[in-house]
């Protein structure tokens, strides 16, 4: 089955991203396809490469990056939600005249159309959030 995943909450504050990650891993282990993981609302904060959790805790951002690199996942951060919350890639930082970017490897910033497309293309779109 082809799954889309929507993550609507930020890391650590809320379990949504953890649950989505574990769900994605379980899908892949069962041989399903993950068409896309879309990060919206505060979920965009899951893409900050400046995240530094305590050493004995899970690293939510890095493990998303690692899972994406291992399975060639498409991790998409909503641009409108990202701009509000200070999340940007190199291109966006340049465009906005900012002195730094902060997006983690294997994430990309794109539009909400990517979420609607996931809804159209996937057999199931599964939401994680409040």
């Amino acid at each position: 089955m082809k799954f889309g995943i929507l993550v609507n909450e930020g890391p650590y504050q809320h379990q949504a991203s953890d649950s989505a990650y574990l769900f994605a891993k379980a899908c892949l282990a069962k041989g399903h396809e993950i068409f896309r993981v879309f990060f919206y609302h505060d979920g965009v904060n899951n893409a900050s490469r400046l995240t530094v959790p305590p050493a004995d805790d899970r690293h939510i951002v890095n493990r998303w990056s690692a899972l994406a690199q291992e399975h060639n996942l498409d991790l998409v951060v909503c641009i409108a939600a990202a701009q509000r919350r200070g999340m940007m890639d190199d291109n966006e930082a340049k465009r906005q005249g900012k002195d730094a970017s902060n997006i983690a490897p294997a994430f990309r910033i794109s539009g909400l159309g990517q979420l609607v497309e996931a809804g159209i293309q996937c057999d199931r779109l599964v939401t994680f959030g409040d």
Partner: protein
Amino acid sequence: MSDEMDMEEGGTIKKFMFVNRKAPYGTIYALESLEVVLISAAFEQDVSLAFIDDGVYQLMKNINTDGIEMKSFSKTYRALEGYDIEKLYVERESLEARGLSEDDLVVDVQVVGAAEMADLMNEQDVVLSF
């Protein structure tokens, strides 16, 4: 599920329902939900909106946001018609529990009971809940 999809103009048309459950201000969910709704219209999907729980407050008339220094987006609900989004369902029980009636809302809606709302949700291909 895929055999239920209509094919039109070479693209897949799915039934998308956006479920709005939260008050319009206080959190950003309602505003960012509207942003997805407007994008989905550009994909020419079969879009409907549901308003339940505190989500019914999103449609209230005479909301004045001056005191909280936030932009009011009440107008956007009235603009939905222009995007061919005309299926707005409001749950009767949620309205009544808050002492509201259809006359208190900024747009024409269909007021439906909880059981009918559940049936409507069952008919959808994609349900996004904010």
